[in-house]
Each structure stands twice: as structure tokens, then as C-alpha cells.
């Protein structure tokens, strides 16, 4: 487990399954689910617990559906409360 611990939350109904986050993740933490959302897209899910909170996935996501958390000693800039994110997508897929 890396020193810096991170985690992500994905708004699966907004995800379009473009897979750009998957390619962007240096940790191979994420992948597309074999399920589809209401729009018919295979949405992104976490498949490992090694997220470092590097934000890469969120940065490349065209639909701004990823929220990233990172636990470090450093003081972070103030950000506001999170709204409208769903948490039920941390599925193991293969």
C-alpha cells in the first residue's frame, strides 16, 4: 500500500464509459464495468484499492464525474462540500 492513500467516487449515471480514465490511471485502479447504466454505457468502477489520489482519472474525464480524495499530512486548499456523487460503484470486475 502506497504511503499516500487515495480514493475516488464516480457518478456512474453520468459516466459514458469512454475509458480515458482507465488509461490515465498509473495504478490500474479502475476499469469499465460489464454492466451498463441507464444511458447504456459501461461505466467506470474501481477494481483495486491502490488508488493514490493522483487525480489523473478526474483530470482526463470529459464528463467530470470523478471525485478524488487523498489523505496526506499536507494541508490542502479549502474545497467545498461534495454534492451529487454516488458511491455504489466500487465493484470488482475482471
Amino acid at each position: 500500500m502506497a504511503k499516500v492513500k487515495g480514493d475516488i467516487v464516480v457518478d456512474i449515471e453520468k459516466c459514458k464509459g469512454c475509458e480515458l480514465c482507465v488509461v490515465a490511471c498509473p495504478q490500474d485502479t479502475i476499469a469499465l464495468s460489464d454492466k451498463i447504466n441507464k444511458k447504456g454505457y459501461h461505466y467506470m468502477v474501481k477494481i483495486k484499492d491502490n488508488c493514490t489520489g493522483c487525480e489523473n482519472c478526474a483530470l482526463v474525464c470529459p464528463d467530470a464525474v470523478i471525485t478524488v480524495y487523498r489523505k496526506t499530512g499536507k494541508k490542502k486548499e479549502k474545497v467545498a462540500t461534495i454534492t451529487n456523487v454516488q458511491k455504489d460503484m466500487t465493484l470488482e470486475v475482471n
Partner: protein
Amino acid sequence: MDETIVKTEEQEFLEEEICVAENLVYRRPKTLTDLDLHYCPGCGHGVVHRLLMEVIEEMDIQDKVIGVAPVGCAVFAYNYMNIDMQEAAHGRATAVATGIVRVLPDKLVFTYQGDGDLAAIGTAETLHTCNRGENILIVFINNAVYGMTSGQMAPTTLPGMVTTTSPFGRDVNKMGYPLKMTDLVAQLPGTYYVTRQAVNNAGNVRKTKKAIQKAFQYLQQKKGTCFIEVVSNCPSNWKMTPVESNKFVEEKLIPFYPLGDLKSPKEETK
């Protein structure tokens, strides 16, 4: 629904310990509305929208910014950007922005234009707005194709590239070479900051955001025209997956349209 959620112990720990407000490092900017973007999966438009809204949120200039988006896939930008916006006729965004900034000189006005818009039908407006040095930011999404109208050749389409109107590949002898508007406007005294960026990977996304930040700062200082080309993708019309399209950006587009500052203020270049 038949989906069962299997949480590992580790996961439970993470959620409890990490997903709390004080650890939040990235979330959708509030200056982006809650609507689903209508763009195709993997389209760079979404990334650039988000970056603009992030910068506006971070700089706390929502009440100062006025955006102008003309026809093109991003014509509905006003549905997503939670700021005052004007939709413009195809090609005329910089004229509209000129109209706004001349009467509201203290506002931060930006345009958001495609390559068809900015470099074909809007060529005259683009060049003259830059030449006058209007105090606006021009965001130029170069996806080498007419996205909205389903994939016709754009001024920036690469030589040999197949589109619906260059079905045998762009023939430079008949259709001309790709037009590098960014190179041209960089030579006009009116432009202050001219740069070419991309959003095909996380590193480039970071740089593009930086460029947008700088540009808004220059606008606040009334330095003149800022011009950011973003080399982007159009998976749908390129007939590629999003991942393939970003590879095409990396391997074909960026070599032709090299990234970096074409003109940057002296304070910055030294």
C-alpha cells in the same frame, strides 16, 4: 437490479477514512451545472469545459466572466457553464465578444470556438479581433474536423486524412494545407499570449489549465488578446474509440501542431 455490491475490508476502510470532506482534492466544479454533457463519450470538449469552470471557480470570477460559444458541438456550452453566456452565429464569436467587451471593458470575456468556426467561416473576425488586441480570451478547440455537422473536412484536417468531404483523404493540392491560425495570430501585435495545448492525457490537461489561468489573469490586467488552441479529438467522426482518438492526437495531430507557447509575455519567458 441484479447488481450486488461486494466491498472488501480495505474498501470499507478507505471510504470511512479517506472519502471525507477534508481529504477532498478534486471534485466537479460548481460552476459546471449538474446537467449531463451531450458530448460523445471521450470528447475533449467536456474536459475543456471543466477546466474553464474550474479556473473560474478557483479565481472566484463567476460574476465577471461572460462566455461566447458559437455553433459547433459546443453550441450548448451555456447549458453546462454556470455563467452568463451568449450563443453566436457560426464564425462570429469574436465579433460578438468584441461587442461585449467594448461596452463592458471590466468584464472577462472569452469565446469558445471550433476549428471550422474559427479558422474557416470566422477567419476574418478571428484575425481582426486579434489584430485589434481585444481584451478577450479565445479558446480554440482544434479537433481537425467539423464535429457538429458530422465530420466534414476542417481547415485543420491533416493532409491525407479521410473525412466525409475528403473521402479520398485531404488532397493538399486541391484543398490546401492545414491552416495554422494560431501561428498566424501569434504574429499580430494585438495578441499578448498565444499558446497551443492539448487534453489527451493528464499531464497536458494540467498544462492547459495553467494556460487558462494565465489567460484570465492577463485579461484582468487588460493585456490584450489571449489565444489558447487546444488540440482535441472527435472520436465519433474520426470513427475511433476515445482511447484510439487520444492516441491519434498524440501521434498525428501533435507532431503537426506542436504544443507550447507561441507567444508569451516577457515576464514569463525569461
